[in-house]
């Protein structure tokens, strides 16, 4: 499993690591697989809350971000896809937006793999990147499929902008820009809080969990945990 040049390794290794640390098989451990329903349920709860409170936010990617940061891009993307499929059962309007949620999962996961969250300023850059990716995928769907109006609170603002004569693309992109950024900042904030509180012995069971273990006081605990054989794979 360690660094031999072969097709099998090529498929299993990702992006830049010279020693390939990440493989899809390891990402999709049973624990990760069972985390997907939780991520979807969180997204669901967040989305419901946002529409109940009529907030101009979506809050339906908290779970996706969380799972992507712990288990990598593919698990994150899958969580995103399942979220929108399940939301679609109740209201088929949400199905096209699966693309956005999948993108969030993929981008966050790849950023997490490449130390995108190791320092506070990297968090900010990663957040911005991820928000941009969301907007780039969401705006075309809103404009081309829905003519600028979705059932979210942001559409009222888009409509107001359009009423003042702004071109539809500009109206949608500016609304999306502001509210998506706020939404993602809040989602990332919640994820950060949770990752801080999850115990190290749980974090270690996930592909990318090591990055979030606090160094210092717990370093000794983390070191001994690393030697434990991980049977769950």
């Amino acid at each position, binding site marked *: 499993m360690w660094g031999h040049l072969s097709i099998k390794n090529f498929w299993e290794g990702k992006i830049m690591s010279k020693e390939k640390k990440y493989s899809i098989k390891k990402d999709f451990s049973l624990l990760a697989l069972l985390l997907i329903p939780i991520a*979807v*349920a*969180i997204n669901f709860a967040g989305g419901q809350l946002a529409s109940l409170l009529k907030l101009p936010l979506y809050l339906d990617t908290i779970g996706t971000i969380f799972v992507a940061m712990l288990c990598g891009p593919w698990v994150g993307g899958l969580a995103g896809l399942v979220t929108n499929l399940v939301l679609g059962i109740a209201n088929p309007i949400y*199905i096209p937006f699966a693309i956005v949620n999948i993108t969030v999962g993929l981008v966050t996961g790849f950023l997490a793999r490449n130390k995108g969250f190791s320092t506070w300023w990297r968090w900010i850059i990663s957040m911005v990147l991820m928000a941009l990716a969301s907007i780039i995928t969401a705006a075309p769907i809103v404009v081309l499929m829905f*003519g600028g109006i979705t059932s979210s609170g942001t559409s009222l603002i888009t409509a107001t902008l359009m*009423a003042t004569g702004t071109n539809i693309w500009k109206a949608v992109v500016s609304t999306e820009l502001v509210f998506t950024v706020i939404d993602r900042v809040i989602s990332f904030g919640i994820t950060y809080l949770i990752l801080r509180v999850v115990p190290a012995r749980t974090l270690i069971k996930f592909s990318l969990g090591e990055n979030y273990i606090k160094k210092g006081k717990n370093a000794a605990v983390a070191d001994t945990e690393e030697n434990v054989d991980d049977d769950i794979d």
Partner: protein
Amino acid sequence: MWREKLKVVKENKIAGLYPFTKLWIVLFYSICAMILGTITVDGYPIYMILSFVIVPILAILTGIMKKVGGVLKNMAFLSFFIIVVQGILVKSKDIIITLNIFNFFNVNLYKQSLQYGLVLAFSIMCMGGILAWFFGSTDNKELISALESKGMGPKASYVFLSTLQMIEVLQKSSKTIMSAQQARGVETEGNVFVRSKAFIPSMVPLILSSITNTEERVLTLESKGFLVKGKKTKLYDVSPNGKEKIAMVSIIIYTVIIVLWRVLLWVL
């Protein structure tokens, strides 16, 4: 004998169709709706609007109007908004009517934008409607069972089923956690700002407890032999109910007629 008790027997023949047949209906109907959208009478997509009528009729025939009615109403509301926004706010060549408000300013209804809005709105209504019909007439168990017969792995089925259960479980847990936090002094009633401050103290314990439960669930699944390789037997099975041929033939005839119509219009 109790295995038969697990089987869901649907009286309604349409609802009891095999899930894949229903999916074909969804697909063909959507394609036809899109094709009809290009056949316009004086620019208006009349036939697409007419084809939408099939959805509520189908829902009533299937006996799920109560379930599906709410979703259709939501979509209708959204579509109405789309039509209004497009028709009034997006300028195009011709103006149909001009409303004079308080003798102060004019509200114009633009023809091309209205037509575009109608196409968008009814695309959503048709495709969303037929999907709503599909989900309303098919139990999740049935769909997943059918997918598994076609070769979807048990892990995927478990993720899907678990997701649907988990949503309910989490909603119950969130109520418990909210009352626990209330007992500790977190304000959960009041205006929007007060309630948003209660959001984080409710979400974080929820997510945390879910993660720890997941660890136990992994152990449970493994002890039940979930990861064992080999053929799995099923307790609940979906079988075709006999009317599939009629359904498939009808929907294919419908599609063929519409495609021919479109091609003829194009050729002539």
